[in-house]
């Protein structure tokens, strides 16, 4: 890795101010994604601004009944928090199913949201990659693409977002709170990550000098029966091929409300609003859930090696919805 200068931010303002005076500066929190990237020259910052000692480590109840999660709360602390286990079990399970205990102990909420794709071509600088170097080409389109996107991809990039936690945050309608040179703003989770389009180099709508300060989780009583199902090549310590975060709200046997998000299928955590719309008011049974799964995948465009993920995703969606409708026990 190249060398860089290092400094510790003394406040949120100080971090933002330093970042806005050097366009080659980068923030570092847990470092579990960034250090890895620095080692293979994916990023070559002039300076690292260490934000890990700032006061953003609190988990606080919101007046609305939701939860405010400081961006430096570690993945472990968030998954272990009693209110998360109780009220948002899909979030606790999504986090626990990701990486390993060693990584989760250090990884922060802010860093997790901003982790970059694990597309092997992006990681290997011997290959061109539109995400790394705009207009250089996308070898995944014609190369080995079994882990790549089914939904919302472009002819410039078929990479998927690797985070598990983000799939649950998408289902839960989280809001990202950020501070930039112009002050604070809030970004709804669905608008935070981007589809690749013609600008695959941009993963999110965050500006480089903006710091994530917190994630806000609105209250969602039926999230108590939420589930997270992750399917991968080995039982643990591997990224998802397909994952599903789902929660079903039942009145008698009818679906009153539902949340459905899918991981491993797109450049962003994929919230399936069409399937949600279809489900509302229907009877909660296997046939309905199967139909919803079909709807969620109807615009899938499989590549040469990832066609199996279409069926995998459909079955995972059906199973997750069934489990949540049955009370959420995994």
């Amino acid at each position, binding site marked *: *890795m*190249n*060398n*860089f*200068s*290092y*400094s*510790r931010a*003394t406040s949120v303002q100080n971090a933002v101010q330093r970042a806005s005076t050097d366009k080659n500066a980068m923030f*570092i929190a847990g*470092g*579990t994604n960034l*250090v*890895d990237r*620095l*080692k293979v020259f994916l990023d070559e910052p002039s300076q*690292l601004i*260490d934000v*890990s*000692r700032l006061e953003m480590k609190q988990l606080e109840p919101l007046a609305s009944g939701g939860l405010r999660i400081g961006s430096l709360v570690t993945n*472990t602390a968030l*998954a*272990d928090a*009693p209110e998360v*286990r*109780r009220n948002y*079990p899909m979030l*606790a*399970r999504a986090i*626990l*199913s990701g*990486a*390993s*205990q*060693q*990584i989760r*102990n*250090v990884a922060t909420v802010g860093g997790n949201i901003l982790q970059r794709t694990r597309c092997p071509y992006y990681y290997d600088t011997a290959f061109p990659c539109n995400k790394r170097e705009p207009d250089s080409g996308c070898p995944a389109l014609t190369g080995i693409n079994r882990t790549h996107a089914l939904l919302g991809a472009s002819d410039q990039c078929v990479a998927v977002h690797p985070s598990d936690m983000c799939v649950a945050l998408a289902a839960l309608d989280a809001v990202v709170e950020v501070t930039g040179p112009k002050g604070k703003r809030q970004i709804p989770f669905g608008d935070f990550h981007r589809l690749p389009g013609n600008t695959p180099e941009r993963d999110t709508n965050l500006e480089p000098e903006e710091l994530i300060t917190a994630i806000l989780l609105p209250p969602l009583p039926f999230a108590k029966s939420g589930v997270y199902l*992750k399917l991968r090549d080995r*039982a*643990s*310590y591997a990224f998802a091929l397909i994952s599903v975060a789902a929660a079903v709200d039942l009145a008698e046997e009818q679906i009153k409300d539902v949340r459905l998000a899918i991981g491993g299928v797109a450049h962003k955590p994929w919230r399936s609003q069409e399937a949600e719309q279809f489900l509302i008011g229907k009877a909660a049974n296997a046939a309905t859930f199967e139909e919803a799964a079909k709807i969620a995948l109807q615009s899938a465009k499989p590549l040469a090696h990832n066609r199996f993920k279409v069926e995998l995703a459909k079955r995972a969606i059906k199973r997750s919805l069934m489990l949540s409708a049955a009370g959420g*026990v*995994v």
Partner: protein
Amino acid sequence: MEVTQSTVSGAVAVTLNVNGKKRSLAIEPRVTLLDTLREHLGLTGSKKGCDHGQCGACTVLVDGQRVYSCLALAVMQEGKEIVTIEGLAKDDVLHPVQAAFIDNDGLQCGYCTPGQICATVALLDEVKQGSSSAITPNLEHPPQLAELSEAEIKERLSGNLCRCSAYNGIVAAVQQLVGQTPPSAAADVMVKEMPA
């Protein structure tokens, strides 16, 4: 708050607390904790398997929690308590986790062992503190030490790979540590299962 700043790319002064001793060093900000331990402090117990957070050989304890030292910048560890495999034994007395690995043949070549042992030390502590894992059936009722199933042990140690595949012995070591009776050593089982 103390501010460490280097305007030129070069070595900075860093003081680390490793195995209870303060160590002052001049290192570049890009140097990982793993390389600092091995190359600057002569603590070669922590191993470099992958250097990318994918194997666990570099696992050490930072403020009591297990972390991969290959993904941690040393300069970011100032003020934290770092414990490596070299810091576990008390004089000539092995740490109970070290002893259990020996009792249960929890190793072959030994390369992954320092990381496995540090991870196990932390694992026991996590269970005592009530942490759940991805496979814990009820997140609100995590298993106590004595109830830790084989599947829980494997899931909780999945961040440490063993190229020699000494997993049976490693799981047995953990079972012994939590007061369970581990199955007999693999060799015994094989002898018993051999046709007469």
